[in-house]
């Protein structure tokens, strides 16, 4: 799983019929200090309806489909939760 910040939305009407989730969001991966880490990706957001600016966690690769109500969609990234806070554990 990865942390990310929702930056925007993508609208795609003409699509593979198996891709049934409507909401597509642009997610900028970030590190634990919320600094950009890598290039933005597009993820399905069927669960939490994350607003722009929201800190989320997402899964990528074939694991993403396990997060979807219909797990046989051709998607390689999905938002799976909102992050309310991050706390470092002193080590």
């Amino acid at each position, binding site marked *: 799983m990865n942390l990310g910040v929702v*930056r*925007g*939305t*993508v*609208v*795609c*009407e*003409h*699509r*593979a*019929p*198996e*891709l049934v989730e409507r909401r*597509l969001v*642009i997610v*900028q991966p970030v590190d634990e200090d919320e600094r950009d880490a890598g*290039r*933005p*990706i*597009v*993820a399905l957001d069927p669960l939490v309806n994350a607003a*722009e600016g929201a800190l989320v966690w997402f899964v990528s*690769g*074939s694991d*993403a*489909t396990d997060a979807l109500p219909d797990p*046989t*969609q*051709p*998607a*390689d*990234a999905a938002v799976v939760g909102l992050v309310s806070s991050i706390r470092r554990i002193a080590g």
Partner: protein
Amino acid sequence: MNIGRVVGRAVSTQKDDKLIGTTLLLVEDLDAATGAGTGEVAVVADTIGAGAGDVVLVTQGSAARFTAITKDRPVDALVVGIVDAIRVGRADTFSRAGGFAKTRRSARARS
């Protein structure tokens, strides 16, 4: 998924029989937020009829096989949508009719 632009088509006369019926496109990877090209071009299977210049949504890896047409086929990148619009913050950064906002601005600057 990633955003990309269709820049060409790969024609293959000898290919795995399981790939018959799918189109192979050349897709340049774009930054999803800005539309800037990354210079990376990949061969991506298409079953929904994307054409040259279209901005498309690409699924990679084994999830690319999760459609009726690509099931059990040797495909690891698939066009799953043709992008109509991208919105970042309060700005519409892309529309299918007008392209990316940056491109529109530069077009106005030239005229």
